[in-house]
């Protein structure tokens, strides 16, 4: 029982990390949006698994919200934003593909090392996936810092949020519902504000 629980969450977490790597590999924005959408579906899957095996029924609601908000609404907003910014196509990332991938491999190793004390402390069956959540956080941070296309930066930020949500799910079966709802609201508002700002901008840099 525990083994299946652990295996399912590990698979979901690995899928999420690999989809973040897909953003570093592919060059076109629709691929980024698809990667984010699939990553959110994987996150909802992990949430549902934790809700089922960990016996935390409010996580079913959270998983459904993740699916609705990050799996459907936000990708649609992003797709509309992408259609309005054709000039971004020529912007190349600050770090090229090979170095990005190698660096993210390094970040994953670092994440394993950093999360060792945390994994030792936690006794839940999901703790195997904790390093993957931390790796996802670090890789998303790297995506935000090294991409010059606006949509890529936003996707990186959203993946960062996904990573933290994964950390909460695997580490403590989710945070209290109030905070979770607050986070959803913040993310939605953030994306809406970003969408409002983007059309008037020139070429931005995340300095």
């Amino acid at each position: 029982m525990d083994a299946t629980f652990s295996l399912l969450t590990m698979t979901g977490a690995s899928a999420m990390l690999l989809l973040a790597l897909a953003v570093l590999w592919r060059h076109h924005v629709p691929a980024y949006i698809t990667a984010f959408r699939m990553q959110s579906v994987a996150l909802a899957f992990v949430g549902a698994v934790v809700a089922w095996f960990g016996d935390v029924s409010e996580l079913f609601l959270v998983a459904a919200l993740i699916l609705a908000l990050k799996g459907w609404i936000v990708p649609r907003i992003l797709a509309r934003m992408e259609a309005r910014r054709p000039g971004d196509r020529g912007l190349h990332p600050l770090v090229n593909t090979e170095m990005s991938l190698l660096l993210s491999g390094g970040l994953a190793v670092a994440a394993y090392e950093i999360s060792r004390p945390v994994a030792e402390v936690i006794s839940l069956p999901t703790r195997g996936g904790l390093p993957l959540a931390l790796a996802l956080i670090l890789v998303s941070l790297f995506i935000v810092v090294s991409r010059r296309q606006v949509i890529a930066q936003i996707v990186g930020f959203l993946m960062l949020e996904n990573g933290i949500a994964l950390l909460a799910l695997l580490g403590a079966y989710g945070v209290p519902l109030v905070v979770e709802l607050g986070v959803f609201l913040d993310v939605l508002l953030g994306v809406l504000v970003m969408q409002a700002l983007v059309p008037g901008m020139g070429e931005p840099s995340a300095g």
Partner: protein
Amino acid sequence: MTTVVLAAAELLFLAILAPAVVGYVRWLKARLQSRRGADLFQPYREFRKTFAKGMVIADTASWLFHLAPYVVVASTVAAAVLVPVFSASQAGDQFGDLFALMALLILGTMFLALGGLDPGTAFGGMGSSREMTVAALTEPTLAIAVLALALTAGSSSLGVITGTLLTTPANAIGPGHALAFAAFLIAMLAETGRLPVDNPATHLELTMIHEAMILEYSGPYLALLEWAAALKLTLLLTLAANLFVPWGMATSVGAAALAFGLVVVVAKIAVLATLLALLETRVAKLRLFRVPELLAVSFTLALLAATSSFFTR
């Protein structure tokens, strides 16, 4: 004593099977492209024909040009000894482990590249430099992908890895195993010069990597190099099959078990070769500067697999 006999038998098996594998892939690709295609044994006939031909050696070629085919063949044969084929009795382990395998493969690649450079032709040099770019990423990837399995098994000997997986199948469940397999397959495509990295059937010199290096060779030298390439493909396919999906290998030295193991390994190679043919028909060749990106992906996958194996020992 039996282990030496077994190792020799496995080597002979691989050596004889190699051209058939290449022939099978070519035939299947032809069929998928609505052509009739030459049969499975055409590569054997080609070898016999090419061996009998005379050689034309460039004036600018040196001793390196003559040495290279022998070194390539020798290193590939030595690497083939290390690979567990149809028996799980770890026959090849007394000769070397995963690191020896990688060293032998890179030795062969290096001399092939030197042989391409030696006559001083433009295409040869171009092929050699491309090959080294690709090899720089594939060799570590192959090594680290197998290392991920070695870390779980606790030993770097290929036979031990296979044996451990046979006895504890639970090790194979988990994303680490799948990631290592994916990384191994991508690196194998690059190492053996198949699509999407290099088109083995191309006649356009500017798109060649492997073929460009052997452009100057003719006669017996060419036959040896072609056969070594076929053997490399076969041994890597066998390695992929047996390291990641070892079930079916003979765990005892009885005749029945060995025969069964033989049939199973032929079947596994056939499945992998079919998938290879399907993939080659489906994808187009990647532009050269995109190849390192693909290889970086496979390297990262291998690194992730090894990291998760290392930290969850």
